Each structure stands twice: as structure tokens, then as C-alpha cells.
């Protein structure tokens, strides 16, 4: 099967009749996928769609260099299929998920175990990779942690203070969001999507809105697209600022830690100024935005944003100036660019390895087609690089917001959408603050969701954390973990 005919190309936020998605035998489908990955494609999503007795494999590839997405599907499979993981490690979690959700065995998968549950027995009940030998010991952390954070289980294989291997077991917060969306869209759907990961509300809601609009063959009014872009950057500002403070806190550097904790709240309050909710709930709605933006409020937003940005600059200046902080951040938790590309890292974690990978730049949609944010890249791949990329993005997002606040387009904030097209596949990517949020929806003959596939950036990036810990001191784990700051519930769905 020719790779050029194995996939249909489409742009971000577009829809395609299901019948027009090219179909091949499993062997052809997988070899075409391999070829596309070898040419620099990236696995944005890989999932199954049950059909009759079997399951169709569907792949969404992000061809960043071509600014395009490619979609392909296989004929229904029942038995095992040859695993992509040995040659393309970025597929490893997707294949484990296929096995967990549909019982399809990826033959040759090196570490086949469930992703979120172990047949009802709980995520951490199962086999962990073990390193045996004298002087080696195992440390189990979680699922209940000392801080007020989400549950997850971490199993370290250590030689003294050095970590040889880390395995992460998640799934404690599996709520069945994908299953809950099937049969939609209904009134609760958008609220369910907003709770995939609470700190990424805007990004997930925007991806959902793009899907519904694409399925309806319509588009949100320009002013709504503009407001969504503002809210997305505010979300990024709040989380990146909070992360820099948390990183400072983990190395016991108080000045930045105290200031950034407060400033994160200030950015959240600015989101609340737009819609009354600090996390942006109910702001993004299919067909537009749930709230208007009057000039007085925008003026207030601008004024408060300016002072908050100045304060963040001061607070982070202390961080960059402290030699003791630099000594902790540099060369800690390094991920090489090769590893990052191999496991398909996304978001700031990928950009901190020098990979130019940003949905806003590679696959612009919505307002980002009209106004760009430069991609912030740093080469080293260590904790310092991840902190530095966050700081660069804070600056870029701040500049973007200050420019765009003066460029509000006129028009409606919300339009009524026609019903969703039947038997159609739609794909939407959004660059959330943590990285690429990928939503794929497939409708049935009535235009209802037949399958809804969510991929949070955390799904790609948890493996990056495990790799970053290899050969590191176990005492640096909290610092590395914070530098990725991944979502547990976004992974668990």
C-alpha cells in the first residue's frame, strides 16, 4: 500500500466523511504507519473503533513539517496484530490501551500490561519491572502522597541513591470519560470534557468546540476565536508561573516560591474576570464563547495583566540569579533529543529538548491562523531547560496577550450550530500549557458520537519522566516530577 494513499490528509480542526478515510489491511496499515513515522511523523493518536465482530485501528499522525494531519484506518481485526512498539516506542502506551480497551494483542510488545486498570484489581496490582542484585532496593511511592496532589504509584529500582529504573502506574482516577461521551453530544458533554484535566479546561474545551464546529461544517465567530486564544494563554501563564514557583519550592528557594504562588492566583483571577471561574469553566462553548468581553473589563484585564507580568519578571529574576538554584536545575533529569523524538514528547517538555514542536505553530487553527506566538525552545533537556522554556513562554504569552487585547475583532460571540454530520470523523489539536491536546470524534448515522478519543499531553509525557530519572539521584525525583508537572486525571480519563 502506497503511503500517499494510505492516509487522508486534513488540516487541524477539519472533518472528513468516515467512508473517505483510506482503509487497508492491518499489515498495510501498519507498514504505512511505520513509514510515515520514519519520515518524521508523530503519533497524535492511535485507537480502536469496534465494528461488527472486530475492531478497526485508526491512526492520527501529526506531520509537523508539512503542517498537516494524516488519518488512516485498518480493516476490522480480531486477533493479534504486529506491534509497532519495538521499532517505534511512541506507540507503546497506545498499544497497551488497545489491548486494554478492545482485547487486541499487539504481538511483540515488550511490556504489555494494562494502562489504567488491572482487571478491576487496581492499577498498582501487577508486575513491575524488577532489577535484582545485591545492594539493590526497591522504593514504592504512592498512590497516596504527602502533598495534596493526585494519586499515582511510582516504583523505583535503586542502587543506593541512584535510580536505575522507574515505573509509573496510573489509573486511580479513571472515570470513563471517553465511554461517557459516546452517544453525545448532549448538554453534559462539554462539561465532561472540561473536567478531563481541571488545569487544562480551556484547551480541552477548545478542542471539543473545534470538533463540534467541524462536524457541523461551521466555525465560531471571529471574536469568540479571539477570546478563546486569550483564555488559552492566560491558562498557560497561570500554570507556568505556578510551576516555576513549585520548582523553586522543591529546592527550598523561598523568594520565588512565595511570589509565584501568589501570582498564579492573579492569573487565575484574570480568567475569572472573563467568565467568573478561575479555571475557565463555561467560557468556551461549541459555536463560540459563553461570555462576552466588554471594553471596560478588557481594560481592567490589561491593567492587571501588565502589573502581574512585571511581578513575575521580578520573581523569576531571583530564581535565575541564584547560583544555588542553577546548580540544582542544571544537568538534572536530562532527556536527550533522540529519546524525546522516539517517545513522542510534546509541549514544553519536548521544546526543552530542542524539538520545535508546538501545535499553535505547526497546525494553527482558530485565532492562531491570524496571530502567531513564537515557539520557545531550549536545548539541554534538563530541569533547567524545562524551567527556562516555561519562562520564555510566559514572556511570549504575555506579549501576545498585550498585543491581542488591543485587536479585538467585532461581531458575534456565539452562533447556533447546525446538527453534526453523520458518519464523519473530525480531529482537533490544541496546544494546551502542557502540550498537545488531541480530540478525535467519529459520528454514527444519526450524527451522535460513536467513538470519542481523547489524548492528553500527559499520555505522551509520563514516559519522559521515567526516562529522565534513569541514573539520577532518587532525591531529585520530586524536582524532575515538578519540571514535567503532568496530569494524573488527564491520563486516567
Amino acid at each position: 500500500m502506497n503511503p500517499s494513499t494510505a492516509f487522508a490528509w486534513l488540516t487541524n480542526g477539519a472533518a472528513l466523511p468516515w467512508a473517505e478515510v483510506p482503509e487497508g489491511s492491518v499489515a498495510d496499515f501498519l507498514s504505512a504507519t511505520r513509514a510515515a513515522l520514519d519520515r518524521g511523523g508523530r503519533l497524535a493518536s492511535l485507537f480502536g473503533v469496534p465494528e461488527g465482530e472486530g475492531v478497526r485501528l485508526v491512526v492520527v499522525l501529526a506531520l509537523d513539517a508539512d503542517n498537516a494531519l494524516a488519518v488512516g484506518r485498518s480493516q476490522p481485526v480480531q486477533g493479534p496484530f504486529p506491534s509497532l512498539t519495538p521499532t517505534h516506542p511512541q506507540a507503546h502506551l497506545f498499544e497497551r490501551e488497545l489491548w486494554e480497551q478492545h482485547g487486541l494483542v499487539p504481538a511483540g510488545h515488550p511490556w504489555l500490561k494494562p494502562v489504567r486498570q488491572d482487571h478491576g484489581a487496581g492499577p498498582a496490582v501487577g508486575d513491575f519491572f524488577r532489577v535484582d542484585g545485591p545492594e539493590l532496593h526497591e522504593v514504592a511511592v504512592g498512590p497516596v502522597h504527602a502533598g495534596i496532589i493526585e494519586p499515582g504509584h511510582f516504583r523505583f529500582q535503586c542502587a543506593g541513591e541512584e535510580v536505575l529504573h522507574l515505573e509509573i502506574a496510573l489509573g486511580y482516577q479513571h472515570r470513563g470519560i471517553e465511554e461517557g461521551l459516546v452517544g453525545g453530544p448532549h448538554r453534559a458533554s462539554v462539561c465532561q470534557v472540561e473536567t478531563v484535566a481541571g488545569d487544562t479546561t480551556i484547551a480541552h474545551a477548545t478542542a471539543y468546540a473545534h470538533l463540534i464546529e467541524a462536524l457541523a461544517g461551521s466555525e465560531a465567530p471571529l471574536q469568540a476565536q479571539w477570546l478563546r486564544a486569550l483564555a488559552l494563554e492566560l491558562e498557560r501563564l497561570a500554570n507556568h508561573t505556578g510551576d516555576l514557583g513549585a520548582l523553586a519550592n522543591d529546592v527550598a528557594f523561598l523568594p520565588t516560591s512565595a511570589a509565584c504562588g501568589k501570582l498564579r492566583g492573579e492569573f487565575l483571577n484574570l480568567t475569572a474576570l472573563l467568565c467568573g471561574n478561575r479555571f475557565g469553566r463555561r467560557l468556551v462553548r461549541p459555536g463560540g464563547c459563553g461570555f462576552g468581553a466588554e471594553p471596560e473589563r478588557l481594560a481592567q484585564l490589561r491593567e492587571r495583566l501588565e502589573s502581574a507580568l512585571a511581578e513575575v519578571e521580578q520573581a523569576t529574576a531571583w530564581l535565575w540569579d541564584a547560583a544555588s538554584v542553577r546548580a540544582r536545575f542544571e544537568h538534572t533529569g536530562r532527556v536527550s533529543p533522540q529519546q524525546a523524538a522516539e517517545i513522542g514528547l510534546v509541549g514544553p517538555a519536548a521544546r526543552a529538548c530542542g524539538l520545535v514542536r508546538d501545535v499553535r505553530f505547526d497546525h494553527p487553527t482558530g485565532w492562531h491562523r491570524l496571530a502567531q506566538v513564537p515557539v520557545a525552545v531550549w536545548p539541554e533537556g534538563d530541569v533547567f531547560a524545562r524551567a527556562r522554556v516555561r519562562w520564555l513562554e510566559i514572556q511570549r504569552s504575555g506579549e501576545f496577550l498585550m498585543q491581542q487585547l488591543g485587536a479585538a475583532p467585532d461581531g458575534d460571540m456565539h452562533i447556533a450550530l447546525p446538527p453534526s454530520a453523520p458518519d464523519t470523523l473530525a480531529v482537533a489539536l490544541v496546544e494546551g500549557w502542557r502540550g498537545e491536546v488531541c480530540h478525535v470524534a467519529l459520528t454514527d448515522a444519526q450524527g451522535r458520537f460513536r467513538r470519542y478519543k481523547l489524548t492528553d499531553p500527559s499520555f505522551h509525557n509520563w514516559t519522559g519522566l521515567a526516562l529522565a530519572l534513569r541514573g539520577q539521584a532518587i532525591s531529585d525525583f520530586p524536582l524532575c516530577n515538578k519540571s514535567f508537572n503532568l496530569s494524573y486525571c488527564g491520563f486516567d480519563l
Partner: protein
Amino acid sequence: MTLTLTSLADLLARLALWAIVAPLLPGLINRVKAWVAGRRGPPVLQLYYDLGKLWRKGVVVSTLASPGFFIGPVVTWVALLGAAALVPLGPLGATLSFRGDVILLVYLLALARFATAWAAWETGSAFEGMGAAREVSYAVLAEAAIITAVLTLSVHSGSLSLAALLAPTPGAGAALLAAGWFIVLLAENCRVPFDDPNTHLELTMIHEAMVLDHSGPLLAVVLHGAALKLMLFAMLLVQAVVPLGDLSASVAGAVLWVGVLGVAVGVGLVESLLARYAFRRVPLLLTTAFLFCWFALMLAWKGGVA
């Protein structure tokens, strides 16, 4: 060996003074940190409230815990209070003083550490095992610095009794000793940059990891013992560096207490302005402390008056 026991009442009064004043220092440190960070911070007396609260609480015990789990904190506390009884209080002198009491002091500190590590191992937790392993590894280096500092004072004064040892003359030697001893104080009391007393992250803890399983009155004993140790190191630092003997009794007493509080403020400032070191760099800093004390010893050997 001359053992002078002024009176039982005097001894009890001094121990009570140590026990009552000690929890003030961590409160002061936290206050300084809050002030630098622009926060209001907890009350200076917070540790007293915490101790009172913990004392009324129950204890949760691991099924693996042996009697050592209970004995450890008590032995630690008694050893630290015993060490405190040996330390002279400026113009008041020491209650218990005999030739070689400084050796006993060093051993009591070691005993306190041993008992804490012992209690940690009794819980069977991976965290506490790691914490204990870290504590004793770094203690090897910290004790080298402590013993060098004691040697310096001993060579300088020609005595092995604390009351006579702590009669410094100002100069380069005293400055070196102050720097070395301050680093040791930070390490021994688990302050930044060695350890983070505020962290909740078990994997990064040293001292805190050892007492994770202790609760209620046992934790109160641990916390109070830590406060005693901090005050003990601060007392020794001030008296080893400031020549209190040259001042009148009332001035010397005032200088001593202001000095101890000043040390607490200094610790607070260090914690506010410095990030914590990575574990692999901790030995480097402790070796620096040892070298400070070593050069002070060289100066003491060369000239007496440095």
C-alpha cells in the same frame, strides 16, 4: 576529675530554662523566613502550640515497630538535655563541669543520633531506612568538623573542660571557627542548604524522613529534642566566638542571649536566600566546614593568639 554539682535545684532550674526557651528558636527562624518572603507567617510561639497539641494526641504505631520505636525518641531527648546540662550559660557557668566533659558532650550528641536512626529502622519503611542511611553518612563528615573545632578550642585554652574551653580571643581563628561551626549547625539541625525542614517530599528528606512514622507525644518529644539541639549548637557557637569572659556578668548574659537569637535570624536568612543543595554536593560543603575548623586549629597551634 572534679565534679561540681552546685545544687540539685540549680540544675533543675537550668534544665527547665533550656526546655522552655528552646522552642522559641524555630519560631523565630520561621518568622524571619516569612518576613523575607513577604508573608505574615506563623506566630513565634507556634512550636509551643504544636507541642501542646501533639501531647494530647494519640499515637499510631506500625505493626512492624519494636520497643525501639518508642525508646528511640526518648533516649534522643534525654541525651540532648544531658548535653545541654554540660553547656555553660555564659556568666552563669555550667552546672556540671569536669575535665573531659566536652568528650561526653560529643558522645551524647552521637547517642542522640544513634537512637533516632534506631527508631527509624524499627518502622520497616523504605523512606525511613533511606533517611537514616543519609543521616549517618553525613554525620561522619559533620563529626569530623565538630571534633576539629573542639580540638581547636582545647589547644587554644589548654583545657578539656567546656567552662575553660569557651574563652576565645577575637581574631582570624575565631572567625574561621565561627564559619565552620555555623555550617555544622546547619547540617546537624537539618536546615537549608542540607535539608529542607518544610518539605513534604519523603524522597528528599534526611532528618524528617526518619521521624515520618512518629506521631502524638512521641513526635512532640522529637520536635522538642530538635529545638534543644538547635539551641545547644547556637549557644556553643556564640560562646566559642564571642569573648564573654571580658564583659561584666549582666552584659555578658545579654550578649549571649542576643547572640543565640541572632544565630536563629542568621539561619532564617540563609534559608530565605539559598536553595537547597543536591545530595552529591553536601559532602563538599561539610568538608569546607571541616577545613574552616582545621585552619582555626592550625592558627591555634601556631600562635595561641591568632
